[in-house]
């Protein structure tokens, strides 16, 4: 065996069994993007539960020859491909996350003030305007719908809809949704101030009535039935949300409720984050579309916030007990961040004005509203 043969074998090993010679600039660019989201999660604490595994997933799949996404020679799925296929493609994870969310959520403030339900509908304005705007850039109808739903500010709903309608955009859409949800405190207050007067921001709202245990128990059942009849396409999501809430409020399955809101939720969050990150290989992600998605996502979010505030203005024309328009911004469903932002914005005007519980109502209505919007899109294009 000559040195020449030895070098040949060595080079063959280096090129086929290591990633040294197969690295390209796209992969390095994706590492930068992945590490940026890891930085946001770790240093800035922006949605760390999701952005950390997403960031890691992005970095991990952008190495040459790594058996994480795709299939092996025998046709079996690689590890992340299994998570993605059974978790996201099969729509399991978003629905299980909604089960956990339902188990964690107290719908009391919404039940006590049902009028705020309409705000959750008005705050979907951006979803539809963005849908139209994106079409001008020659997105398909399915892609436009999946980009539009970002403004609903509901991560699982965005992932559920995108996985159904435009799986190629899953990474960009999910990242945009979670990034902007984390930036609610930066995005919303200026828009609220722009569309309200000082006098309107000083409106004090009546204290919410107490809600009985029985009423809270009946709520998930009745909402589930109405949604299932009117928008059957979104029953998997809403059904799980309401099942989780029913488990919580019935009080007879505390063990199940606790599992749904803690262990189960944490487990699926890990798989969701990795799966979303794993869809973002440089070949697919580095194009103009993701940039446009991030741009439109921001616009979408801003219009949704504006839609919620304007809805309150319209409602106030007819109401005797006025609603503080600041809580309109909470109509986007970033729970509970948007409600907290409403509280802080209100207290900047009047330290004795406590809007948090009032803002939780439209916030929860936003969850139902964005799921309803997703259901409408699935019914149209699914």
């Amino acid at each position, binding site marked *: 065996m000559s040195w020449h043969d030895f070098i040949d074998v060595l080079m063959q090993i280096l090129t086929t069994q290591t990633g040294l010679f197969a690295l390209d600039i796209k992969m390095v660019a994706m590492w930068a993007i992945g590490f940026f989201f890891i930085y946001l999660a770790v240093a800035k604490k922006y949605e760390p539960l999701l952005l950390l595994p997403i960031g890691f997933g992005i970095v991990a799949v952008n190495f040459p020859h790594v058996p994480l996404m795709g299939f092996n020679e025998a046709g079996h799925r690689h590890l992340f491909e299994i998570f993605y296929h059974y978790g996201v493609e099969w729509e399991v994870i978003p629905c299980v996350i909604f089960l956990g969310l339902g188990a964690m959520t107290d719908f009391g403030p*919404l*039940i*006590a003030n*049902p*009028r705020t*339900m*309409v705000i*959750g*509908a*008005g705050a*979907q*304005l951006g979803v*539809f305007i963005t*849908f*139209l705007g994106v*079409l*001008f850039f*020659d*997105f*398909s*109808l*399915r892609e436009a*719908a999946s980009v539009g739903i970002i403004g609903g500010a509901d991560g699982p709903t965005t992932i559920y809809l995108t996985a159904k*309608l435009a799986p190629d955009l899953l990474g960009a859409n999910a990242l945009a949704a979670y990034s902007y949800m984390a930036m609610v405190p930066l995005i919303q207050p200026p828009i609220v101030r722009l569309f309200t007067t000082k006098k309107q921001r000083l409106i004090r709202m009546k204290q919410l*009535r107490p*809600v*009985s245990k*029985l*009423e809270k128990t*009946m*709520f998930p059942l*009745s*909402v589930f039935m*109405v*949604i299932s009849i*009117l*928008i059957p396409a979104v029953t998997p999501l809403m059904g799980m949300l309401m099942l989780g809430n029913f488990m919580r409020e019935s009080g007879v399955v505390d063990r199940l409720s606790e599992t749904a809101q803690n262990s189960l939720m944490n487990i699926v969050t890990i798989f969701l984050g990795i799966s979303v990150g794993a869809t973002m290989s440089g070949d697919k992600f580095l194009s103009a579309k993701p940039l446009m998605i991030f741009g439109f996502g921001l616009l979408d979010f801003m219009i949704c916030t504006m839609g919620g505030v304007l809805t309150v203005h319209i409602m106030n024309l007819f109401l005797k007990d006025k609603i503080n328009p600041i809580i309109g911004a909470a109509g986007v469903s970033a729970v509970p961040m948007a409600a907290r932002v409403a509280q802080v914005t209100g207290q900047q005007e009047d330290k004795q004005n406590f809007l948090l519980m009032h803002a939780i109502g439209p916030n929860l*209505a936003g969850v*139902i*509203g964005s799921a*309803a*919007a997703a259901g*409408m*899109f699935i019914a*149209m*294009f*699914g």
Partner: protein
Amino acid sequence: MFANKKYSAGKALLVLGLCLAITLGGFMALTPAAAHASGQAVEKAADAGNKLIDGNSRPSDPDFDWGIAIYTLIIRFVGIFIVLGVIQVIMQVSGRIFTNIDAKKKAQASK
């Protein structure tokens, strides 16, 4: 019955709602002609939907119809208001019922 003060407006609405649901349900179940007609309407609507909306079409396609895209979007946006509005009405009605029940319980307890 509704003139009696013992029966609250909420209860009256509940009874009305139940009557309506039973009547409609009975009508749908017992009238084959109506069921057949509604089935045909559903089929027609489904056919129309398949022809009008193809989710993979883009504005650059020659047969892309902006009108249909915009109309269907407006209908869906209004649809969200209707869905959440229905839930709101149900919550308001049930809220009244529960508030009355609680008030009665408190009144009985204070006696």
